[in-house]
């Protein structure tokens, strides 16, 4: 239980720093430390993501880092595909989802390494008080 809470905390830090939901951490955390199946872990991860992303977006908005119209447009236009994805995952065998998820983790890891090694990427500190 402490491990699950710690992994949740870590997922939040990752979400805030990288602008993601934290699902890539929530899902394995829920499988390894809570004992959920892959599909149930994914569903439960999405529940945890909602408040985390909401608080993160609010904080970033105060720093002046959110383009509200674009964010809402991308989110609203994503809804049909998200519903389709959930329907697909509920029809697939568990092992196929596990392998797909592992593949996603490796792709994201490679993406992060590439971004980290690119000059001028990775984010220099913002000027103090920006957007306040």
């Amino acid at each position, binding site marked *: 239980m402490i491990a699950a809470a710690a992994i949740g905390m870590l997922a939040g830090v990752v979400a*805030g720093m990288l602008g993601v939901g934290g699902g890539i951490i929530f*899902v394995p955390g829920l499988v390894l430390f809570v004992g959920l199946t892959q599909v149930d872990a994914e*569903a439960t991860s999405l529940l945890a993501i909602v408040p985390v992303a909401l608080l993160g977006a609010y904080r970033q908005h105060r720093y002046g*880092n959110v383009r509200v119209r674009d964010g809402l447009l991308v989110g609203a236009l*994503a809804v049909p595909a998200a519903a389709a994805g959930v329907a697909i995952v509920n029809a697939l065998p568990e092992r196929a989802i596990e392998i*797909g998820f592992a593949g996603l983790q490796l792709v994201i890891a490679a993406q992060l390494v590439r971004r980290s090694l690119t000059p001028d990427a990775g984010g220099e500190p*913002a000027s103090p008080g920006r957007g306040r």
Partner: protein
Amino acid sequence: MPSRRTIELAGIGTAAGLFSGLFGVGGGSVIVPLLILRHGYHEREATGTSLLAIVVIAAAAVAVHGGYGNVHVADGLLVGLPALGGVVLGTTLQQRVPTRVISLLFATLLVASAVDLLAK
């Protein structure tokens, strides 16, 4: 006719939504690079805007999962509540430190987790 820009944002949304539904993630790993590469966003602005989109995407995806009876609410709170502290820390850190080191640590963690899943 929707503008070219709206169509592009719809493309980003569709890719992110599919990822979200299939993998139980927010779709930020799709949204952030595409906003930077296709729309000239700065890194921080992309991550902030991505978080807003994720609120909508994850809410829709979890609602559909709820219909299948896959959502464990108590377990979601168990990881989600500590994550609220984490996201405050993460957004604060992001304004002050380079994300490079954290990105590399995070990548290492993902590889370890993927190997564990594949070796199961």
